[in-house]
C-alpha cells in the first residue's frame, strides 16, 4: 500500500537513500570490475578468469556441492517453514497479551535473530556429541543440510505468516459456510493464496543457503567444501586475486537474480487474489 507523499518529500528521501545504496553496493561493483583484469603478461580486459574457473575441478566440485545443498535444503526448509507459518497463523491466540502473545513467534524466529557464528558452533557441538554417542551424523553434507534447513525454515515461516496475516479472515468463515472442512480449506483456499509466498520463501531459502559461510564452515566435513568456504580459504591463502573476483561476481549475480525473482513472485500476484470489500 503506497503512502501518499509529496514530490519534494519523495525527492529528498531519494537524495538521502542513494548515497547509502552507493556505499552498500560500491564494493560489489569494484569486485565485478576487477574480475575482468588481465592475466599476468597480458593487457586489456578479458573474460580469462571466468574461463579459468570452468577448468578448475575444485571450483566445479564446490559449485555442485553448493547447488545440491541449496536445492535440497530449500525444498525441505520451505515445506517445514510453510507448515510453521501456517501454524503460527492458525493457532495464534488473539486474546493473549504481553509475552504469551509473542512467545510462539519468538521461539520460531530465534534462528533468524541468532548470530550465525553462535548458531554454527552450537550445531557443531550438537553433531559432534551425537556422533560420539551414536556414530551417526558424521560431519559432512548431511549435517550441513540439517543445519541449513534449521535456519531457513523460520525465514520461510516469516514470509508465509506475513502473507497470511494480510488475508481477510472472513474468507475462512466463508469457506466454512460452503461446507469445506479444514483439509479442503487448506488445499483450495490457503495454498493458492499463499503460493507466491511459498515460492518467494523457497527463493529466499535458496539464497540464504548458497551464500552461507559460517554455519557451513562449522558443520562441514571431509570433502564437503562449498563455494563460500572455497573462496574463504583461497583468500586466506593468497589474498584477493582476479579469479576469486570472478567467482564472487558470479555469486553476486546469482543472488541478485534470485532476489529479483523473489521480489516479483511475492509482490505481483498479491493484488489479484485478495478479495477486498466493495470489489
Amino acid at each position, binding site marked *: 500500500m503506497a503512502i501518499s507523499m509529496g514530490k519534494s518529500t519523495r525527492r529528498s528521501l531519494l537524495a538521502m537513500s542513494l548515497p547509502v545504496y552507493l556505499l552498500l553496493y560500491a564494493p560489489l561493483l569494484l569486485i565485478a570490475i576487477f574480475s575482468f583484469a588481465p592475466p*599476468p603478461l597480458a593487457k586489456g580486459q578479458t573474460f580469462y578468469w571466468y574461463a579459468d574457473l570452468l577448468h578448475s575441478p575444485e571450483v566445479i566440485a564446490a559449485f555442485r556441492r553448493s547447488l545440491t545443498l541449496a536445492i535440497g535444503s530449500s525444498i525441505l526448509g520451505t515445506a517445514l517453514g510453510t507448515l510453521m507459518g501456517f501454524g503460527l497463523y492458525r493457532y495464534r491466540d488473539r486474546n493473549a497479551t504481553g509475552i504469551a502473545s509473542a512467545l510462539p513467534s519468538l521461539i520460531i524466529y530465534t534462528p533468524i535473530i541468532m548470530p550465525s557464528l553462535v548458531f554454527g558452533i552450537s550445531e557443531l557441538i550438537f553433531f*559432534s556429541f551425537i556422533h560420539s554417542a551414536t556414530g551417526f551424523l558424521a*560431519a559432512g553434507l548431511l549435517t550441513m*543440510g540439517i543445519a541449513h534447513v534449521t535456519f531457513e525454515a523460520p525465514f520461510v515461516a516469516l514470509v508465509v505468516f506475513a502473507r497470511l496475516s494480510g488475508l481477510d479472515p472472513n474468507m475462512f468463515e466463508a469457506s466454512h459456510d460452503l461446507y469445506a472442512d479444514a483439509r479442503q480449506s487448506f488445499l483450495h483456499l490457503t495454498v493458492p493464496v499463499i503460493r507466491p509466498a511459498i515460492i518467494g520463501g523457497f527463493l529466499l531459502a535458496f539464497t540464504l543457503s548458497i551464500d552461507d559461510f559460517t554455519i557451513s564452515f562449522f558443520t562441514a*566435513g*571431509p570433502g564437503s567444501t562449498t563455494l563460500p568456504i572455497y573462496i574463504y580459504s583461497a583468500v586466506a591463502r593468497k589474498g584477493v586475486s582476479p579469479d576469486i573476483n570472478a567467482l564472487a561476481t558470479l555469486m553476486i549475480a546469482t543472488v541478485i537474480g534470485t532476489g529479483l525473482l523473489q521480489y516479483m513472485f511475492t509482490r505481483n500476484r498479491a493484488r489479484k487474489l485478495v478479495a477486498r470489500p466493495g470489489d
Partner: protein
Amino acid sequence: MKGLMGKIAGGALAALIAIGGGAPAAHAAGKTLYLFNWQDYIGKGLIKKFEAYCGCNVVQTYYDSNSELDAKLRAGGDSQYDVVVPSSYYIPQLVQQGLIRKLDKSKLPNFKNLLPRFQNVSYDPHDTHVVPYQWGTIVIGYNKDKIKNPPESWAALFDPKYNASYPFSMMKGSGRDLIGAACAYLGEGFACKTKAAWIKAAKLIEKQVKRPNFSGFVDGDPTMQQLKKGVVAIGMTWSGSVAQCYADKTCLNIGWILPKEGSEAWVDNMAIPTHAPNPELAYKFINFILGAKEGAELSNFNMYPSPNAASEPYLDKAIKQPLVTPTAAQMKRLSFLPALTPAQAKEFGAIWTAVRQH
C-alpha cells in the same frame, strides 16, 4: 494438504540423505584416503601417483592453522580423516588429547630414509606418533628497492631506524612465531618459555603496532603476496614461500634475511588420527611419501627442504640453496618451538589475545 507437503518433505529428506549418505558408503568401501593437509603442500602429480599406486581415491581437505586442525579433530574429525599434518609444537597437545594414534613402525619400512636429525625428535620421543613430512624456517622478506642494506637481524623489522616509512607487517596465526621473534631480538632466545619473557616480547610488539607504518598482522603466505604486490615492504614469511616466488621469477626484487639472533625451524609431520576410517591406506600413504623419489618430488613442488636423506640426489638445485636448506652455520641459529603444557598454553593465549587487541 499434509499429503502434498508430506510428499515434498519426504522427497527432499530422501534426497538429502542420499547426498549425505553417499559419503559414508564410499568410506565403508575402503578405497578412499581422506587427507587433511595445508593448502598447496602436495602436488597434484604426486597425488595421482599415489592413487595409481594404491588403487584408491584421495579426497583432500584443507586447513589454515594448527588450531583449526585441533578443533576439527576434536569435533569428530578423528574418525573422518586418515592422514593429518600437524606442526611440531602442536604434537604433544594432540597426543595428550588422544587424537592421534601410535604408529606401527613395521608398516613403515621407508622410515629409515629419514635424516638422523629427524629421527627420535624432541617433540615426539622415539617417533611413536608422527613422521616428519617437510620442514622449513621463518625468514624476513623485504623489498630490495625500498629497504636498502638491512642488517641480518630482527632489527630490520623491529627497529624504526631501518624502516621509517615503508609499511611492514608482522606474523598472525598462533602468535608463537612472532613472540619467538621478539624474544630472540630481546636476547631471550627464539624458544623462550617463561611468562616474563613473553610479556617483554608482547610489550615490544605493542610498541611496533603503534608505529605509523605498521600495516597489520598477516600470515606467512599472504605476506609473500603482499610483498609481491608492494602492499608491504618488509614482513615475516616462510622460507618456502620466498623460494616458490623465486622459482616463478615473479619477485626478483624481494630479498630475505635469516636473523642472526635466531629464527624458527619448524617441522610439519604426518600423523594418523585415532579412529581413522582407513589406517591401512594411511600407512601406505606415509610410507609412499617417505620414499626417496616421492620425497624429492614433494620438496621440488612446495620448495621446502626434505627431511629425507634418501631424496637428496633427486632434489632440484633450487632446494639446495641456503634460502631453502640452511648452511651448517645458519642451522645453529634455528630452534624448534617448545611444546607448552596446557597451563602455559593458556597463559600464552591470554598474552597473545591482549597483543592482538591493540
